[in-house]
């Protein structure tokens, strides 16, 4: 009986709760606002001297929607628009620097939204980067600005530098088709008028864009502000950009064992100068919008070629063999922002702390210095060139070592249908590349940059949201035969070329075996990096620990205290494809940094193309190194000096956009005036009646006497 009662009560409460939740969805707000989900926002970044990007006011910027499809629409807004402020809604083809500047200087625009549903055509070119990416860093440190040398408009001919400007309004990017439809419908129903004046008389379709940024002015100011603490908490206003580099050596580097009291340093086995060849690629890119940074040509082409090359080299050279030379694979983070990853590695090399801080109590490999670097090959912006066209080698150095290596590359490439053309060193002019950072410290490094552009970038979407799968012409073969004229096959051949050449460099003999890069692996790698980051290869590499989801990766470097998914997955993929199996079980599958600083151990699926295959513990030389700019490591570094990257990203509370109807101004005024008049009349009426209540409600003997209601009030109000 008792039980029954309590059950009824609890059931009752549950129903009450459900209904109140239901009631929530009925709230007026949901009829007044349409939240635009999945909108990408432009946000603020800062360097040592300036701020870049966008910010809204604290409570968000509100503006009347105005769709700009052509020049006439933009002119109308600038010269005729009366109901401002406006939010300009533009298509990518109209989203140009000149339009944005016009809108900004008009003073009528409170925000910009770029819309693009996939059916719309891509503009012919769309790059918000500088014409000269990383203009002030790299070799510029050594020679002054090098970009314009011999190039009329810089490396990135279509660059508009929109990314490197401080906009006074928020900018959003909407791709959701239904939201775009609603926006158009709302605009046509409420805002489209024959005469500008009509807009003043009606409720108008409006957008509120909220992307308030906490940081301002420059990195120096905001890092200083980060140190202030309030009583209860510390809220950062900006965070340094950065992440982790992935690095790996072909051969495990020998450690020096703790001996019996001898001078340990002298017995350390250090490599000979110039004995470590480096194969590097950048791992990041950028775009204007948070969370949407595809980088097919910009980063992915280099990453996958490097991974596939590493995998092939590990198959070609048995680990037991012993050579004097080694290969260092480097995947660098933050290169889009004044070479964060590479400048940190160079800094660490100079300090003698790369790859690990020296610690005499542990058996660790000796530090690698800049002098140990032999040939430095950087893979930058690869794609399949037009038939018969070569890849290009850019270099500064004209030593015999470089020339020899290029010859080896050319010989190997010719056999594989990958012609390579040697661009003779122009004076102090190298395309933007991580190699620049190394050369700035040690100009005689025999370095070369392998790209598909002879002079200016042929990638028209450099550092933009349109550098997507389509620009590589990639079609997933999904375990079936990969066509020979596909990008997969081409990049596999590039890998083979480089791997064979590095083999020759390391062993001093030509490769006579038959191993080539696996086209299906290349297919899968591209699929993982371009289309689905929960692909089977990544699933195998992280042993199903549910990293990733079914969407393309975003290649923005992010802030340094958050490890980006790109570096986690790339490191895991490198380890999976090159590691050697051990007998450890899952609980023992980890390295012990106090005894072993050569190997890492990771728990993965045994086959890369089957994530449900039996798990195994792999031993690998893959490791991560910090990619935080030295500017944030050195005490008292002068942020304005320009030596190291000082990029930071502002903290923001939210990035939201919503659509609603904005009442006309006259309606608001009328409502307010009406309210105030009613209030005033009420006071007057009540005062009047209250003073005369004895007469009005004539005192009698019965209960019908004395004070009572204020009928006159009512009359006055509604007469």
């Amino acid at each position: 009986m008792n039980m029954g009662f309590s059950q009824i009560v609890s059931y009752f409460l549950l129903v009450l709760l459900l209904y109140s939740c239901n009631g929530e969805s009925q709230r007026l707000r949901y009829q007044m606002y349409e939240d635009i989900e999945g909108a990408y926002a432009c946000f603020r970044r800062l360097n040592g001297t300036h701020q870049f990007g966008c910010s809204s006011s604290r409570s968000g910027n509100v503006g009347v929607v105005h769709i700009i499809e052509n020049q006439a629409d933009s002119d109308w807004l600038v010269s005729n628009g009366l109901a401002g402020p406006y939010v300009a809604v533009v298509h990518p083809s109209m989203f140009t620097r000149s339009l944005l500047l016009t809108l900004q200087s008009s003073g009528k625009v409170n925000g910009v939204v770029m819309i693009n549903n996939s059916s719309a055509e891509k503009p012919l070119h769309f790059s918000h980067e500088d014409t000269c990416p990383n203009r002030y860093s790299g070799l510029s440190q050594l020679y002054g600005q090098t970009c314009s040398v011999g190039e009329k408009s810089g490396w990135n001919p279509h660059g508009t530098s929109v990314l490197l400007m401080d906009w006074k309004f928020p900018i959003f990017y909407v791709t959701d088709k239904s939201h775009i439809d609603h926006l158009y419908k709302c605009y046509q129903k409420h805002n489209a008028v024959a005469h500008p004046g009509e807009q003043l008389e009606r409720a108008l379709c409006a957008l509120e864009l909220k992307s308030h940024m906490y940081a301002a002015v420059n990195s120096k100011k905001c890092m200083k502000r980060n140190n202030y603490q309030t009583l209860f908490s510390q809220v950062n206003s900006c965070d340094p950009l950065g992440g982790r580099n992935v690095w790996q050596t072909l051969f495990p580097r020998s450690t020096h064992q703790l001996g019996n009291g001898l001078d340990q340093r002298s017995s350390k086995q250090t490599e000979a100068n110039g004995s470590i060849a480096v194969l590097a690629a950048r791992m990041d890119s950028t775009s204007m919008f948070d969370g949407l940074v595809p980088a097919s040509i910009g980063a992915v082409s280099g990453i996958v070629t490097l991974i596939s090359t590493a995998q092939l080299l590990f198959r070609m050279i048995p680990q037991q063999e012993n050579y004097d030379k080694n290969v260092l694979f480097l995947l660098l983070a933050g290169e889009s922002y004044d070479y964060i990853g590479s400048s940190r590695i160079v800094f660490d090399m100079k300090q003698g702390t790369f790859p690990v801080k020296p610690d005499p109590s542990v058996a660790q490999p000796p530090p690698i210095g800049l002098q140990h670097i032999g040939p430095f090959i950087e893979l930058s912006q690869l794609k399949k060139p037009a038939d018969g066209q070569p890849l290009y080698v850019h270099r500064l150095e004209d030593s015999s070592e470089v020339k020899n290596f290029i010859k080896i590359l050319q010989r190997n490439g010719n056999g594989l249908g990958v012609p390579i053309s040697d661009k003779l060193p122009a004076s102090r002019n190298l395309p933007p590349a991580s190699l620049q950072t190394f050369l700035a410290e040690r100009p005689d490094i025999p370095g070369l940059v392998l790209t598909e552009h002879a002079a200016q970038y042929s990638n028209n979407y450099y550092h933009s949201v349109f550098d997507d799968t389509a620009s590589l012409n990639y079609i997933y073969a999904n375990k079936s035969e990969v066509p020979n004229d596909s990008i997969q096959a081409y990049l596999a051949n590039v890998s083979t070329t480089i791997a064979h050449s590095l083999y020759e460099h390391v062993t001093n003999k030509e490769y006579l075996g038959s191993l080539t890069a696996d086209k299906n692996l290349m297919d899968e790698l591209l699929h993982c990096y371009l289309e689905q980051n929960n692909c089977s290869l990544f699933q195998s590499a992280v042993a199903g620990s549910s990293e990733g989801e079914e969407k393309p990766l975003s290649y923005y470097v992010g802030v340094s205290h958050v490890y980006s998914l790109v570096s986690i997955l790339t490191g895991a993929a490198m380890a999976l494809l090159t590691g050697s199996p051990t007998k450890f079980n899952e609980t023992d599958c980890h390295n012990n940094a106090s005894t072993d600083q050569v190997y890492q151990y990771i728990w993965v699926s045994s086959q890369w193309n089957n994530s449900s295959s039996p798990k195994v513990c792999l031993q690998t030389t893959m490791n991560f190194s910090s990619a935080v700019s030295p500017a944030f490591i050195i005490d008292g570094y002068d942020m304005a000096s320009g030596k190291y990257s000082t990029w930071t990203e502002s903290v923001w509370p939210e990035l939201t956009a919503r659509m609603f109807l904005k009442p006309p101004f006259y309606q608001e005024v009328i409502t307010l005036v009406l309210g105030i008049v009613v209030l005033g009349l009420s006071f007057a009426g009540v005062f009047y009646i209250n003073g005369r209540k004895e007469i009005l409600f004539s005192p009698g003997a019965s209960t019908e006497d004395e004070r009572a209601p204020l009928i006159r009030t009512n009359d006055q109000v509604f007469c």
Partner: protein
Amino acid sequence: MTLCEFFGCTFLAFGPAIAMLTLTIAQDPIAVITVFASAFFWLLSALFSSIIWLLFGLTGMSQEVQIALSVILSVLCQEGFRFLLYKTLTLLDNGLKNMLETHTHLIDRKLMAYAAGIGFGVMSGIFSLINVLADAVGPATMGLRTGSDKFILVSACFTLCFVLLHIFWSIIIFPALDQRNMVQIAWVLVTHLLASTLTLLNSSGHSMLAIIPNYILVLLTACVAFHAAGGSMNSLKAVIASR
């Protein structure tokens, strides 16, 4: 932006009530207590009617029917609790009278009815408008998906209407209960039902059709209340003449 709308509507809906509270109620402690007690009784009535609605609303009826039924139910609950309030205040008055051994009413009956009306009216007004007002603070107005952009203003007008009606109903019904005046009691019940069901027209988009008859009801009920409170044509003339 539409902070203007927010304040405009708040003043419109509650202006008369604010004036009455500050000029006629605030000086009298017993009246203040009565206002709070009656506001509390209105809340109880809302709770009670929502519990009943919950039990009946579970049966599979169409939404229109559910709303219509719940309006009637709510009106009956409110009037029931108005009666309970009347009973409670009377009991209290009698109890105090016995305790202090006097024969005059400790609580002025007219003031009590008036204060009870204000409490009922203000609380029902807050209850019906607060959600609208909370959402009106933002930059938007109604009409993106459904409704018209006048929605908030219309809601405020209705709220004003019901605040005034509740005051008048209390003024009418308390003496009517004292005297067992069934005609006046019936008037209150019928006009309350009528006014509430008129608001059902609102959802069909014809808010003007609901507002005008409602304000006619307000005027008629005001006249009845004026009479119930002891006013007459003569007293009205006297006041005008005294000017």
